[in-house]
C-alpha cells in the first residue's frame, strides 16, 4: 500500500496540465485495484484534468502563496463532516452533503470545490462533487463539462446508469458529476423519487464515498429547496460584509435545523485565530489524519 500511495502522492504533486494520460490511467488502474475490497469500484469512463491555473484565474482556487492557509480552513471544515459521515451506524445519507447559501456570489462553488479537494486528499476516502446548480453550472463550465450529460439526464431517463455519467479527475478520489442539460422543470426532477433513488445508489456503491452537492442559492432557486431533503448534512456558506443578515436568517429558516451542521464564513477579514495566518498550530486527529 505504501508504495502505491507514495506513487499517487508523487503523481498528485506533479499533477496539473503536464500530467500524461498514460500515467493517469495507470494511477486509476492502480487505485481501482488497490481498493478492490471496498465494494464494486467503477472506473469512470472519462477522466479530465483539473487545470489549477485556470481554476485560480476563474476564482475557484485561492491566490498563490495562500494554499497552506486555505488547506487549514478546509481541514477545519471537513473534519466534523467526515466524522459524522463515517461514524459507526451513521445513516448512509450522512455521506450526502449539501453546500448551500442564501444568495449568489457568496463563495458556494469555491467552498464546494475546495472542500472536495480537501476530502479527496484523505487517503481512504473518495468524493463525488455534483454540480447541482443546473442553471449556472459553474463547476461544469470551469471544468469544461457543462455540455456533458449529468444528473438531470439520469433522473429524466431511468435507463441511464448514474455511475456511467461520473467523470473522473486527475486527482485521486475526486470525481465530478455534471448537472446535465436543463430543459426546464429541474426542480420537479430534483424533487422526484428517482432523485432519491439515485442519491441512495451513489452512496451505496462505495461506503467510503462522500457526495457533495454544489447547489443553487436557496433564496433564488427552487431546485436548491427541492434538494434540501436529500442530504444528511448541510453546510451554509455566507460572505462577510456581503450577505445580508436577513437573507442568511431566511435561508436558515428554509433548512432543516438538524441537518444544518454549520456555517462557512467567507471573506472573513479578521479572525480571533491567529493560526489562520500561517502559524503552526497543533491540529487534533480526526478520521483521515492530518496530512496535507
Amino acid at each position, binding site marked *: 500500500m505504501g508504495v502505491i500511495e507514495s506513487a499517487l502522492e508523487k503523481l498528485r504533486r506533479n499533477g496539473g496540465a503536464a500530467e500524461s494520460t498514460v500515467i493517469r490511467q495507470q494511477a486509476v488502474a492502480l487505485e481501482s485495484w488497490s481498493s478492490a475490497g471496498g465494494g464494486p469500484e467503477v472506473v469512470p469512463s472519462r477522466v479530465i484534468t483539473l487545470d489549477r491555473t485556470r481554476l485560480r484565474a476563474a476564482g475557484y482556487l485561492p*491566490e498563490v502563496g495562500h494554499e497552506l492557509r486555505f488547506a487549514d480552513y478546509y481541514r477545519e471544515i471537513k473534519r466534523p463532516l467526515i466524522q459524522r459521515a463515517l461514524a459507526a451506524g451513521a445513516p448512509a445519507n450522512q455521506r450526502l452533503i449539501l453546500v448551500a447559501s442564501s444568495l449568489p456570489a457568496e463563495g458556494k462553488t469555491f467552498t464546494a470545490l475546495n472542500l472536495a479537494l480537501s476530502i479527496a486528499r484523505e487517503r481512504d476516502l473518495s468524493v463525488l462533487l455534483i454540480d447541482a446548480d443546473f442553471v449556472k453550472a459553474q463547476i461544469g463550465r470551469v471544468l469544461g463539462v457543462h455540455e456533458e450529460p449529468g444528473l438531470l439526464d439520469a433522473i429524466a431517463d431511468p435507463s441511464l446508469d448514474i455511475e456511467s455519467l461520473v467523470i473522473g479527475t486527475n486527482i485521486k478520489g475526486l470525481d465530478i458529476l455534471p448537472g446535465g442539460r436543463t430543459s426546464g422543470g429541474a426542480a420537479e426532477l430534483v424533487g422526484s423519487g428517482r432523485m432519491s433513488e439515485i442519491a441512495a445508489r451513489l452512496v451505496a456503491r462505495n461506503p467510503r464515498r462522500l457526495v457533495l452537492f454544489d447547489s443553487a442559492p436557496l433564496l433564488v432557486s427552487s431546485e436548491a429547496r427541492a434538494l434540501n431533503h436529500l442530504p444528511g448534512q448541510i*453546510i451554509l456558506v455566507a460572505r462577510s*460584509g456581503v450577505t445580508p*443578515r436577513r437573507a442568511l*436568517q431566511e435561508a436558515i429558516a428554509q433548512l432543516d435545523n438538524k441537518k444544518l451542521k454549520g456555517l462557512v464564513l467567507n471573506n472573513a477579514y*479578521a*479572525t480571533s485565530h491567529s493560526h489562520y495566518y500561517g502559524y503552526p498550530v497543533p491540529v487534533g486527529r480526526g478520521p483521515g489524519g492530518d496530512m496535507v
Partner: protein
Amino acid sequence: MNPSLQQLFDQFVGVWRYRWPAVGAAMVAAFVGWGIVFSMPDRYEAETQVLVDSRTALKPALKDLTNDQDVGVQLSYVQQSLLVDAQLCRIVNAAGMLPECAADPGAAQIPLAQIRKRIQMAVQSIDDRSGQPGSAGATFDITYQDEDRGHAFKVVSVLLDTLIAQTMGGKRQGSEHAQEFLGSQLKEYEKRLQTSEDKLAAFKSQHLGLLPNDDGGYFAQMQKENQAVAEAKITLLMAQNRRATLEGQLHGNAAVLASSVVQPSNANGSPATDTASEIAATQAHLDELLLKFTDKHPDVIATRAALASLKARRAAEIVSLRSGDAAAAAATGASSNPVFQSIQLALNKTDVEIADLRTQLEQHESKAHDLHQLVDTAPQVEAEYSQLTRDYDINKAQYAALLSSYDKSKLGQSADAAGSVGFHIVQPPTVSFKPVSPKRSALLAEVLVVALAAGLALAYALDQFNPVLGSASAVAQLTGLTVLAEVGPAFPTRAKVISRRELRHVSIAIVCLVAVFLIELSLSGAGLRLDIPALQHMVRTWV
C-alpha cells in the same frame, strides 16, 4: 481582536458598502446648501443705544414724597407694544416700507412678522449703589437688520423716537390715570365719611345717656352704682351706730355726772340756779348753822327741811334727766354743762349726716335701679355705637390715606414734568457699511460639514436598513450556528488593490468637495452672489 473594536469594524464594513450613495448624497446636499447660501440676500444692521436714567437729582429729593412709577415696567410694556402689528405697521410706514399694511394690517402679517423677527431690543438694567436691580435706570439697545441700509436706519430711528415718546407719554398717562382714580375714590370716601358722621351724630342724640362715656360703659357704670349703694349703706349704718352711742352717752351716767357737778359761780356773781348748787349751798349753810346752834334750833330744822326737799327735787331731776327730758336738763343745768353740750352737738351733727346719707343712698339706689332696668337695651346700643364709631374711623383713615396718595401723585407728575426720568441717547442710530448677515464663510463651512454628515448618516441608515454579516462571532451570535471556519479572502492581493482604489476614489471625491468649498470661500469674499429669485424668495421666508 477586542470585541467592541470588532463590532465597530463590522459596522464600518457595513457602512463602507454604501460609500458611493454617501458621497453622492453629500455632494448633492453640499451643492444645494451652497446655492442657498449664495442666494441669501445681504443684510445691514442699524443700531442705536439709549440710556434711560431714572436717577436724576430730583429723585432722592422726592423720595417718599411721590409715588414712584417703575420706569422699567413702563419700558418693557412699551417695548412689547412697539412690536404689535398695528404699531409696527405705523413704524415701518414711517420708515417708508410696506405701504400696503396701513390699509390692511391683516394682509401684511407675514412681512410684518419677518420684520419683527429682525428687530431686537435688549434692556440691560443698571444698578446703583443700593444694589437694587434697575434702580439707576437701564440701557436700551435697538438693532434691526434689513437688506436696504436706508430702511434699516429709518426703522431704528423711528423705533427710538417712538420708544421715548411712548415711555414718557405712558408715564404721564399712568399718573393721570392714577390721579383720576384717586380723585374719584376721594369723592366716594368723602361721601361715605359724611354718611357715617351723620349716622353717628343721629345715634348719639337718640341714645343720649346710654352711650358709654369717659367713665366707661354700661356695665362699668352699673357696677359703680352698686358699689356706691353698698358704700352709702355702710356709711349710713356707721352714722346710725354713732348716733346711738352719742344718745346713750347723753342720757346715761355722763349726764347725771354732769348735772351733779357744782358749777362755779358765774362771773357776774349771781348765784347758781341749778339744784345741785342749791343743795351744796344749803348744805354749807346747814353746816355753818350747826356750828352755832344745836339741832333744835329752828334755823337748823328749817335748813334741814329745805335740804331734804332739795335732795328730793334732785332725785326727781335725775329721773327726768335719765328719761332725756331737755327741760329737765335745762332745769338741772346739765345743758349748760360743756360735756353735755358737746355730746349734744355731736348728736345733732350725726342726725344731719344720717339724713344726708339717706338721701344719697336713695339717689344711688334709684340710679342702680334705672340701670338695672336697662340691662337689655344698653349693651345693644353700646354695640351699635361702637360699630358706627368703627365705620367712621375706617372711613376717616382711608380718606386720609387717599388724600395723601393723591397729593403724592400730583407732586410726582410735576416732578416728571420737571424731568425725574431722563433719556440720553448713547449712540444715535447708525448703519454698518458692511453687511452683517449672512456670515457666508461660516455658513459655507456648516453646509460642508452638514453635507458630509448627511452622507455618512445616509450610509449608516442604509446599512441599518440592510445589515450584512460581520465577524464570525457576530454571525454565530446572530444565527446560533457553529461557524465551521472563517475563510479569509481568497485573493487578498486583489482585494487590497480594489479596496485601496475605492478608498482613493472616495478620498478624491471628498477632497474635491473640500476644494470646491475653498474656492467658494474666496468667491464669497470677492462678492459672488447667486441671483435666483425663486431661491431668494424661499430663503427670505425661511430666514
